[in-house]
């Protein structure tokens, strides 16, 4: 099921066709091609889609899905799943909002909120690695616990009155460069840093090894438990970053804030080529997945599609995207195999 990330001799030096095959075998490449073809067709029906303002709008909205999807992708690559993402977004946003209302300086409030998210991730990791609770169950439980804490804490009434001028910028309610907002640049920075870490250090290989076969990874000197812990901490922290910014974007923290994000991020990660069986996935794929989800929602709004169809359309496109990704992978593998037999 897995593709080879490291080029083998047969992959190199066979010209443009082979390069293409290799590229479309990358996680998310299939859906990226789909998106590239799909957008111009959509814009025939709604020319506004390709206007600068709308494209910037898509980016500004997308990052709130992208950032937690980066975390989800790390978890999925290392063979897990994190259902607590949405609750962590809500709870960490609540932590930031609450600290600001009691007068804690903003940098401290934001830092503590992100730490709280990382700690929830660490608890997830401990429950999974030490108590041997399956990932799905452990994070499902955390999803309920974290959300419940926010409900008990707020008593159902949103946190309000914490917005300062700076928080409007953090939340992306003010544009900073052209029509782009600060969260876009935060997401870009995170994307580059994480890509660097996974490509240039051993971490990437360790995550993949843990996700493909934890026992084999152990034999080759990797400590899968540590790697898993790290993945969940990263996921919690990235969800918390999202929560902090979302609290600024929405100007109130409703106790239901972020619910549903866990499924959207899983969908985005999977559309981006992450394999739920572990070992496969990429951040650029996550970007394409998040972008696709946002473009679909944008198109539904702009084409003014009747709302009852919304769920059907989004569901179908997710399925379609995953099938395309699989087809692209098969195509790429088929090509390599032929070459190998030459």
């Amino acid at each position: 099921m897995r593709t080879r990330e490291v080029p083998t001799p047969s992959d190199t030096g066979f010209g443009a066709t082979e390069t293409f095959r290799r590229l479309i075998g990358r996680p998310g490449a299939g859906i990226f091609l789909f998106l590239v073809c799909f957008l111009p067709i959509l814009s025939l029906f709604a020319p506004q889609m390709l206007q600068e303002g709308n494209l910037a709008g898509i980016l500004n909205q997308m990052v709130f899905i992208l950032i937690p999807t980066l975390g989800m992708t790390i978890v999925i690559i290392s063979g897990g799943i994190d259902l607590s993402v949405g609750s962590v977004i809500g709870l960490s946003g609540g932590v930031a909002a609450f600290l600001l209302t009691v007068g804690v300086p903003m940098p401290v409030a934001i830092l503590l909120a992100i730490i709280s998210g990382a700690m929830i991730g660490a608890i997830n990791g401990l429950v999974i690695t030490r108590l041997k609770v399956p990932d799905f169950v452990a994070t499902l439980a955390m999803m309920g616990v974290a959300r419940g804490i926010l409900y008990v804490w707020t008593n159902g009434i949103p946190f309000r009155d914490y917005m300062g001028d700076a928080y409007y910028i953090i939340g992306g309610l003010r544009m900073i460069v052209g029509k782009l907002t600060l969260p876009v640049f935060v997401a870009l920075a995170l994307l580059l840093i994480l890509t660097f870490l996974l490509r240039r250090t051993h971490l990437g290989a360790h995550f993949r090894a843990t996700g493909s076969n934890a026992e084999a990874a152990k034999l080759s000197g990797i400590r899968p438990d540590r790697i898993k812990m790290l993945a969940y901490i990263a996921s919690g922290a990235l969800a918390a970053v999202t929560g902090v910014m979302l609290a600024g974007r929405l100007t109130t923290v409703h106790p239901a804030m972020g619910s549903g994000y866990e499924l959207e991020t899983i969908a985005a990660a999977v559309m981006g080529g992450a394999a739920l069986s572990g070992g496969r996935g990429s951040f650029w794929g996550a970007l394409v997945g998040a972008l696709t989800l946002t473009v679909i929602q944008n198109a539904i709004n702009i084409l003014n599609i009747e709302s009852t169809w919304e769920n059907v359309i989004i569901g179908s496109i997710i399925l379609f995207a995953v099938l395309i990704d699989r087809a692209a992978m098969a195509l790429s593998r088929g090509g390599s195999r032929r070459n190998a037999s030459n």
Partner: protein
Amino acid sequence: MADNDKTEGSNGLSRRRLLGTGVAGTAVGATMLSGIFNASHALAQEAATSLIWGDAAWRKTVTDIVAGRTLTVGFTGPAASEFYDEIEHGAFAQMRAYSDMFGVKWNWTYASPQEHQDINDQVNTIEAWVTNRYDAVLVCTAGDFESMQNVYAKAEAAGTRVFQFNMPAELWPEDQNRAISNIGYNNTMQAGYLAGRYIAEKLGGKGKMLLIWGLPGHWSTARRKGLDIALAEYPELQIVGEQRGDYVRDKALNAAMNLLQRDPNINAIYGENEEMALGASQAIQALGLKPWDGTDGIITIGADGLKSGYESIQQGQMTATVSVGAVDQGRQSIDTIFWNLIFGQVPPKVFNVRTQVVDKSNVEEPLAYVNWALSVPKV
């Protein structure tokens, strides 16, 4: 003493609200009360009390019949939110008033499904209350009308009386509605219609509007019906976009932004609840468009009547909202339960509280009223 004054004050208000059937009577009562508070004469207060609602002899009669009884009531809405908190605080106020006046005690339980509109969860809660022999349950549910009737029938058979609040009772035949009383408002004519009328009047009957709508269900159906009735009179006022916001700000903000990117030349946005209207107001600001200033800009209107909504109106962000009488719904619910349970008095099948379009010109009174209700401690 100060506390005592406060309690008396709330009683005064409750009488004003509950007996507000005649405009003249209400005005006289309110004027008299405010004069009395200034003088703060206990004797004069008692006189005013008798004029508005019974005297000491009657209160004693009621108190004797109540005989210190405890009423056990369960309260469940479709989700935990600021709106249902306001309703609950209205109930707290009325429970405290009746405890003070008649010596009745309340055993109050609140529950709402963790997931928004998780009907199964809510039905389980009601059934647990019925098993525990609650005197009454107060229900507001996103559940299907007919399937809820079966739940209510079981409750009835077990001796628990069912009251509904905040439901669009106008949608269903009264003779099939098993709730003893439905305390709420007419979503069609007292909410959707009012919002449509407000937009039409402000825009002179001409313009383009967007709708950000909630989850498909009976509230959205009823409000849409009212909006359509209002807009039928204004053919030049057109709905040019209609998208879902699922009652949450997050989704409404994105939907409004996308719709405004498509065509910024919009005159009004109707968010079916306040969270969504607030999201639309934020979208207008984030895109650098102009909020309504009384003559120009984009109108945003919602429905609920939340403290946060009123404050946003004061700050010139959201243009208007339809206050659907959350506090009065809570107070009226307790009033209905009390007189029905202890005295067997038959309430109207549908009791609609007053609603009102609130904008910058009249926001003071509803805000003060909500602030008062929220200051009443839990029971």
